[in-house]
């Protein structure tokens, strides 16, 4: 690890780099929002940010503190109702990228944000639930997941399928009639995972600088597949770090950070 930046900062920068300029991105709050706003502040000035509160094309100059932050409405191209954002914008597949977090994630990119442990009616931990995620995961052109990698999170089998990745493997999305492409990439604090083109299994394809394969394996509760041509990502540039810290600093002035 390089002392110049934290693992979370590396993760956020790596996630931001996944967003192509000019695309439309459905942004959840927290890490996805930080990364999406960083992308807009660096290489993707024309990234269209869509928030489930109904803000289309929001252009905040600081990190929004919630998906309903006033700065989103103030800077949006259009503010529409919540039913409209789901029915007219998300559902028909108009959004290129869905940007999601996770409390648990399995090898096929299925996501749990509902309950952990016990059973549904008597869980060990009750999480917030689905929100917009099931339909974001179903309908966006592709999904980018940003999540810290550890044994609690990277599990063999999620306790509850809140949002479908590749289900039980190849062909499942098609069988279910899900029209979006599913998870294209998972960005963690250790590296980057991508689905194998044949098996759909999440495969470690890139490590962040200073991270080892063993570290990634040790943080994964399943037998982690590693790409033959494993690469190492570039560290955050000075520019990326400066812009990211400027964004999070404005947020801290306005209350707590968006994580």
């Amino acid at each position, binding site marked *: 690890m390089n002392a110049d930046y934290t693992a979370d900062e590396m993760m956020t920068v790596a996630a931001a780099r996944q967003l192509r300029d000019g695309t439309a991105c459905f942004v959840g709050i927290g890490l996805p929002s930080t990364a999406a706003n960083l992308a807009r502040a660096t290489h993707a000035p024309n990234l269209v940010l869509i928030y489930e*509160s*109904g803000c289309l094309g929001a252009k905040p100059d600081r990190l929004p503190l919630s998906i309903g932050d006033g700065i989103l409405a103030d800077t949006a191209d259009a503010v529409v109702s919540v039913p409209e954002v789901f029915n007219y914008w998300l*559902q028909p597949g108009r959004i290129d990228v869905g940007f999601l977090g996770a409390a648990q994630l399995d090898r096929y990119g299925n996501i749990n944000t509902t309950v952990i442990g016990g059973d549904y009616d008597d869980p060990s*931990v009750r999480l917030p639930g689905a*929100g917009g995620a099931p339909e974001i995961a179903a309908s966006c052109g592709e999904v980018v997941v940003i999540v810290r990698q550890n044994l609690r999170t990277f599990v063999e089998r999620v306790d509850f399928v809140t949002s479908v990745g590749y289900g039980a493997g190849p062909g*499942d999305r098609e069988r279910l*009639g899900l029209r979006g492409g599913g998870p294209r990439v998972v960005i963690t604090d250790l590296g980057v995972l991508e689905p194998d083109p044949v098996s759909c299994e999440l495969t470690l394809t890139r490590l962040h600088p200073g991270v080892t394969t063993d570290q990634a394996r040790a943080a994964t509760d399943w037998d982690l597949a590693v790409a033959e041509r494993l690469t190492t990502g570039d560290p955050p540039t000075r520019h990326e770090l400066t812009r990211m810290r400027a964004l999070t600093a404005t947020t801290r002035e306005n*209350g707590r950070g968006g994580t």
Partner: protein
Amino acid sequence: MAKLVALSDGVADLVHDGDVVALEGFTHLIPFAAGHEIIRQGRRDLTLVRMTPDVIYDQLIGAGCARRLIFSWGGNPGVGSLHRFRDAVQNSWPGPLELEEHSHAGMANRYVAGASGLPFAVLRGYTGTDLPRHTANIRTITCPFTAETLTAVPALRPDVTVVHAQRADRAGNVQMWGITGVQKEAVLAARRSLVTVEEIVDELDPVPGQVVLPGWAVTAVAEAPGGSHPSYAQGYSVRDNAFYVGWDAISRDRDAFRDWIERHVLKVEVQA
């Protein structure tokens, strides 16, 4: 025409024990003052409906008003968990809380169906998730033209919906702007509605992005300046983010919570 009422009278008249009650507002315009009045009046056995049960529902649940919750995302936005909600689900404190759980898209469409006088709504949603295994109110439906299978959810018809808005005029026409969420649908889906507003004015000057609810579609309007705090009312106030952060510590502890409710809700001097 909507009746102009005092908030306490509006809640007394329109919110009854056992009712299905929706308080809506998507981060913005959350009707906290009305929620506190419901706690003060000691309502019990409510089925609470809300897409994003956040701090206001944490308070209602912790205060023992709720028997059941119909929702799609229950958290403290930007902070973390709702501890009163978790305590009710995990430990049945102060009483058991039945859950009916949906996605945002499903909840939004349930309100749309209610507002439209239809018994159900159709969407592409929930497919492949575990939600339908635990929520009976998610079914499939076949397109009569393409034979495609889609998802159906039943209409939501709250007994009463409560929302907060920026302004109303003396005929009870309600005007809100900024992020207006699902409030129009929630009001139109309900049998009765109560709208709290920052101010009652003589004339509603048009505002870009406004949603206007005609007074004849609203049951009652109550003036409640600051009534969305710690949420915000665009043009009137900003979100009190520190409150949301502070709520985490207050709500983690049952006694701290009870003490807070005692001091900030029950013992508050309320204007008539």
